[in-house]
């Protein structure tokens, strides 16, 4: 008796939406096992990891605060992924966005500019910087046919090194005791608070707006449709006269702009200055969010909350369970693996093979 996969004539929509749930459940099971193996009481660990971080008003605010950049970046990435444009360099685009917005903040922060003028300008600068950084892999792919996964990834390292140089050198705070950090941003360059006594800021509203716009674009606009065609069947896209180059540019720039905006959101939000690391790997976690969210704006919003919970859980585990925060990365990777595994059910059924009957 053997199990084998049998192709479905139709992709199963039910499976498409239950796969993330299945994967999440399976990840929890894995977590259970991991905690046990590490000698921690699994239930207590679960509590500390998944429940405690959101058990208070402050906790919920933190949840949404961390979900914000994930939501924004993943929405942009998903637009590209649907068209088979693999922007893996969101972390670098986020960094460049933070540098651009942060640079503006440092330059104009002490001046008379009001928040209402400065903040939008910072976001625009961040979006442009993120787009510019994503334009490089886009250009390399359309002009040289170079794989955008590798080029966008290389640029992550370049961007990180660039930021490192800036905060160690020309932009270092002269009164910062030689720590690699920029001056703190002036109040005008900081995002207004959304919920009193929490860190949640208006960036969250911006994120929701971005998700909404993306939803309309992907579902209802002809370009969104064409990008989906390109991702599913490039020869059909060519046949239909869909411009492959335009798709690459759009896909990369959407991701770059969103990542840049997220970068400004971090700089002008919880961080308030420029540091050598502006993100705990949001650019990479957003890739997972995009997949778990089925590349669909609504799914992405939900998945970003889940991923945010994993981040908070890691921090909580560090404090309460004496586990390294790296356990977050472990869970994130496991979640993606299990999602890809569960995805097989979308296109295939599991069947039991009977031996061929010999008369």
């Amino acid at each position, binding site marked *: 008796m053997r199990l084998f996969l049998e192709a479905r004539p139709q992709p199963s929509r039910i499976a498409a939406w239950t796969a993330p749930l299945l994967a999440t459940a399976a990840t929890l099971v894995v977590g259970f096992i991991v905690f046990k193996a590490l000698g921690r009481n699994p239930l207590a660990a679960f509590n500390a990891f998944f429940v405690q971080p959101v058990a208070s008003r402050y906790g919920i605010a933190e949840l949404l605060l961390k979900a914000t950049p994930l939501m924004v970046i993943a929405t942009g990435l998903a637009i590209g992924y649907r068209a088979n444009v693999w922007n893996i360099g969101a972390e670098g685009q986020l960094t460049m966005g933070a540098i651009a917005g942060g640079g503006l903040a440092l330059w104009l922060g002490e001046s008379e500019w009001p928040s209402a003028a400065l903040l939008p300008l910072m976001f625009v600068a961040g979006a442009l910087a993120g787009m510019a950084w994503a334009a490089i892999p886009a250009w390399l792919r359309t002009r040289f046919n170079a794989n955008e996964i590798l080029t966008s990834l290389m640029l992550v390292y370049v961007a990180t090194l660039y930021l490192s140089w800036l905060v160690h050198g020309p932009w270092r705070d002269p009164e910062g005791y030689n720590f690699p950090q920029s001056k703190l941003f002036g109040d005008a360059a900081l995002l207004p608070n959304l919920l009193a006594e929490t860190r949640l800021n208006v960036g969250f509203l911006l994120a929701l707006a971005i998700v909404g716009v993306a939803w309309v674009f992907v579902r209802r606009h002809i370009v969104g449709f064409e990008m989906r065609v390109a991702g599913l069947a490039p020869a059909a896209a060519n046949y239909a006269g869909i411009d492959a180059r335009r798709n690459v540019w759009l896909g990369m720039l959407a991701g770059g702009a969103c990542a840049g905006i997220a970068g400004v959101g971090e700089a002008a939000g919880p961080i308030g200055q420029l540091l050598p690391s502006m993100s705990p790997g949001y650019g990479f976690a957003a890739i997972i969010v995009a997949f778990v969210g089925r590349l669909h704006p609504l799914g992405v919003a939900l998945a970003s909350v889940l991923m945010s919970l994993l981040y908070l859980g890691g921090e909580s585990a560090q404090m309460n369970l004496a586990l390294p925060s790296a356990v977050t990365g472990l869970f994130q990777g496991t979640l993606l693996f299990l999602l890809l595994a569960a995805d097989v059910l979308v296109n295939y059924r599991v069947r039991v093979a009977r031996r*061929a009957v010999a008369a």
Partner: protein
Amino acid sequence: MAAPSNPPATPAADAAPRLALSGITKRYPAVLANDHVDLDVLPGEIHAVLGENGAGKSTLMKIIYGVVKPDAGTVRWQGSIVQIANPAQARKLGIGMVFQHFSLFDTLTVAENIRLAVDDADAKSLPARIRDVSQRYGLPLDPRRHVHTMSVGERQRVEIVRCLLQKPRLLIMDEPTSVLTPQAVLSLFDTLRTLAAEGCSILYISHKLDEIRALCHRATVLRAGKVTGQCDPRHETAASLARMMIGADLPHPRHREATAGAPALVVDALDVRAADPFGTTLRGISFAVHAGEIVGIAGVSGNGQKELLAALSGERTQARKNAIVLCGKPAGRLGAAARRRRGLAFVPEERLGRGAVPEMSLAENALLTTRGGGLVRRGFISADAVRACAAKIIAAFGVRTPDPEAAARSLSGGNLQKFIVGREISQQPKVLIAAQPTWGVDVGASAQIRQALIDLRDQGVAVLVVSEELDELMEISDRLAVIAQGRLSDPRPAHATSAEEIGLLMAGAHRTQGTGMPAAVAG
């Protein structure tokens, strides 16, 4: 197709069957491919398995060759029951198979390709043995050549020689002549007759009635997975075979006398360099298709059809805008979408993956090339209009599908092709280009599609059909041209030409090759 000359010799009728299938059944999720099939082949016999596309012939052959396992039934080889678990076992028994879609590796040499399929360890003597066998059976091959440099006909020789090196007792040929010129077909028949005379049995899969009548001793007819008849094809007519094959008479399209109008598509000195290193370069292609006529372009695959179609459809644009003129206006530099707006429609060779997106619904696939009719307003899609458009196509062209939301890949080949043809025709084009319009399509849908093309012509549309099925082209075309090695012959009236003439043009016989032999024989 002209009837060839020598009738085949009959093998001893009282010999025990070499291969005997009994009650073979195979079920797939969507279809019952083989339904209690009985078949037997005598030693030295050329046995046809006749049936239209989708009758179950390929599945049956895969079962014999061990690629697929039957759900029920027995296979007897030389009298004893065998379980053929995989192709290696089939080969060990002495069964060889020449696939319809070659299983060759382009970047490897002939010798390397053969070495992969031949189950012995003696690699050193292989090139010599290849030369030996290929000469003996009239299929000359150079073992050191890379497969990607070879024509389709030459590649088939590699497939055949690969089988012959294993000294098969049964050779299965799956639709072997679809890639050959008429002359090469005759040459192949000689090879097969030589083999049969040496005692090798041959299973010949085909839907080409004249060939079967010329070559085969016996025929088993399959329809919808069942055996519907067995006969001696030499004593049958094409019409009686067709009746066994499809259960009715072969439909013939209704013709009206063609009255051609102004040229709607003009191609002028088109030069296209092959995009693929293994492709064909087009040189100086010039022809015109007038409104109200059907021009057919015949040719063996691999002679530039792919490149020509991509250049005409706009999937590949030209530097010279006047290389292609649509309805009087230069279109060479326009992309596919722009050419559609000018009145061009195109039914591509590949249904799934090019003509339609397999995972998307029929409704979404309707939107793939249709932009008019209120489907898209100011950039935004009207879901209702899209659904209505798809429903109209489905109704008008008799597409059998559960509903417009069904994924394209869930449709049968014939139904999907009807949908695609219907979609393109529904856009009321001025020029329609169709590539292999009835490939892999059952007879009923084929007839419908051919009739639709003729009706379109009668309405004044310029129709261009590029196909490897010469019979089909001769049936529906007003004028016929041949593409060979990237060059196009002058189109001539279809009724004023013959299959022989076309065959010579296909082989490029207007130029002889270096050996001094006409290219037709060199093949």
